[in-house]
């Protein structure tokens, strides 16, 4: 292969095809770079920055998921700068939302030597659970804003465009058009958003009810409703 790219990752030589990301290049050497938001089937946006690596001669750390390997790059995936950023990011995230149903993130916390109590007194994002349809519940107190649900609802998969973002900055949240309940949106209840959620913020209604201790009959009674008539989108309410 003549257009092969040769670079150095943690002192080892990597040979990769053009267009390979640093994350993929490291994987070829058996190095697993931790990540939070990255998913093989959604567009990588470099949000969580947990996959940052130090590339010599670059001013700032580079997100491995969206940084293309280039000839001669010298990459350090576990330098002190990288460790500080990873640990601090996990500590800040843990102070923001409920990660109790995100075992992978808890494992990353352990691996990064992150202190779960690093930011006492931090304002948490803790909105009330939204239970507005028979198919799934939304508990955004667990949402880490990885964007996967919004992406699969839009052009990464379903083209449904039922959900997007409310607010901005720390107070960003996933929301519907004018906060409409899900049955009044374009949602087709395909379930893809639930499938890609990494933290249990989105959960099938039956799973949710069974966790609450309901017996199967009671669960069925709450989730097998007759077909609901849906309001056409965009029809203003009376008044």
């Amino acid at each position, binding site marked *: 292969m003549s257009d092969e790219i040769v670079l150095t990752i943690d002192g080892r030589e990597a040979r990769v095809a053009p267009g390979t990301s640093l994350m993929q290049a490291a994987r070829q050497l058996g190095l697993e770079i931790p990540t*939070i938001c990255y998913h093989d089937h959604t567009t990588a*946006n*470099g*949000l*969580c*920055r*947990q996959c*940052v690596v130090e590339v010599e001669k670059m001013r*700032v*750390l580079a*997100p491995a998921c*969206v940084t293309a390997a280039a000839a001669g790059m010298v990459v350090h995936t576990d330098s002190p*700068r990288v460790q*500080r*950023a990873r*640990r*601090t*990011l996990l*500590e*800040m*995230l843990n*102070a*923001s939302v409920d990660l109790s149903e995100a075992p992978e993130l808890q494992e990353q916390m352990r691996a990064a030597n992150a202190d779960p109590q*690093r*930011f*006492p*007194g*931090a*304002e948490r994002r803790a909105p009330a659970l939204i239970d507005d349809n028979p198919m799934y519940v939304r508990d955004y107190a667990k949402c880490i*804003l990885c964007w996967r649900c919004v992406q699969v609802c*839009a052009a990464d998969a379903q083209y449904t*465009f*039922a*959900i*997007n*973002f*409310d*607010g*901005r*900055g*720390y*107070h*960003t949240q996933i*929301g*519907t*058009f*004018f906060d409409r309940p899900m049955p009044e*949106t*374009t949602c087709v209840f395909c379930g893809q958003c639930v499938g890609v959620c990494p933290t249990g913020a989105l959960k099938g209604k039956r799973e949710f009810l069974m966790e609450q201790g309901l017996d199967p009959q009671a669960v069925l009674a709450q989730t097998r409703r007759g077909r609901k008539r849906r309001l056409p*989108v*965009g029809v*203003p309410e009376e*008044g």
Partner: protein
Amino acid sequence: MPSSEISQRQITTFIAPFDGCGRESLLPALLAAQRRFAHIPEAVAVRIAHALGVPLVEVHGVIEFYSLLTTQPTGRTVVRVCTSPACSMAGAHETLRAALKTLHVKEGQLSSDGRFSVERAPCLGLCEHAPAMLVGERPVAQAHASRIGTILKGGGARPRGRVFGHTRWLTDRCGVVDPASLREFRAREGFKGLQRALSLTPQQVIAEVKAAGLIGKGGAAFPTGVKWEGAANASGAPKYIVCNGDESEPGTFKDRVLMEEDPFSIVEAMIIAGYAVGATRGIWYIRGEYPRALAAARTAVAAARRAKYLGPNVQGKGFEFELEVRSGAGAYVCGEETALFEAVEGKRGLPRIKPPFPTTFGVFGKPTVINNVETLCTVPVILRLGVEKYRSLGTPGSPGTKLFCVSGDVARPGLYELPFGATLRELLFDHAGGMAGGRALQAVLMGGAAGAFATTEKLDVRLTFEDMKTAGLPLGSGVVMVFDERRDMRHVLVELGEFFAEESCGKCYPCQIGTQRQLEVLQRVAHGSPMRGDAERLQDVGWTMTDASICGLGQTAASAVLSAMRLWPALFELQSQAA
């Protein structure tokens, strides 16, 4: 007006001009709706979505992102009180309280007659007139609490030019000509730079800009000629010239002054850039909180079009250049070039991952040159004076002149045009009249909220890119905000922290969460009750934002805080003796 009072007929009339315009008209449509209905009712958002072919929920996401767009009714006149440091030091919080009390409202609430609502605003770019406010689209200077009754009745001081300095290359026309008059512009060297450019080949124009050593004056200090060359060599059409007039860095007001008082020079510069780069489209993006600059720009563009400086055949020279003025909608982050492109495209203003860079993949995915207002205004000067004359001022590394935005505790706040290489001491004491009230200097914030503090030992640093870099200070956008001995720097820091927490777009985790965690620690520090380990927390949060954020906002959100920690470490420590 309340949603219930809006008829379908009113909405139909409103929506007609936008029908079929496409997503790029989303921000203009939403801004027009906000102006027409004092908020964006759900029924209007639905019609906008259908007219422009944008998914409903994405329209909602865009409304939610920008601070000038609301889903809840505002007063017919929104009173915006600037509470960033320069105004805060001059009494903005007293002004805010007085406004709320006079109108018997809380922040964001409507007055009983629906006429007014009151909000605090991030820096309005009127720092030389502090405390400042916007009443609807009317800027008010020296808006002290005692004057609030007069101001709300339509009175109050109008901001008048405070432009100083004895070498007026960029500001020669400011305050002298009628900014709406093409004739007066031309009478004072206007379009001479363009004339000269058109006598050269596009390649020669770029060569002159490079030879002049022009460096971007918006904060990032990138060589302008290199940027132009990159876009000129890129393939793709049409190419775009974007003027970044989204000036929002707290303490910065230079671009506002240029846009309000000499708008034709920006038109001239953009035409030159278009000719040099082979771009046929121009977008002049101005922050939504600059109503006077927006009006001046629109007037100038219309006049230039009538005079055939814009259009399919500029001055009969056989090249095309069209120019459109676009308003921002309230988002500091849109000063970041790729976030600005997203806003123009009708999206939430989130910075993109780079590369690709704007020169190859800019607005609408086309090759784009995006330059700051002051940078662009320098281009006609270079072409008119010639490279040799231009380089006769300044230093080899920083030729020409620079605009400095001086605010805070100085005798004569204002916009100062000085040759690069003057010292900070000369700027403050020879030009700006020294400290107000003769008090002692404590610190100067250089480069804005995203900058760093300097103390008296840095007064003899020369104001050039290279000297400032050696001294570990950013020149940034030319902010020089002065604090005297009385000021509690912890309160200044908390205001900067509030600013970044409010303005973070929320895309990448370091900035989204870090600006909030930083604010929380700074609040404890300001209350004099830091927790054990807060200094280390600030360092970890600060360096993580600096090192791992996606764009310049996050990468500099801790810059001033980290510089304060170096200068005044005791401020951040537990004061165990205090109790």
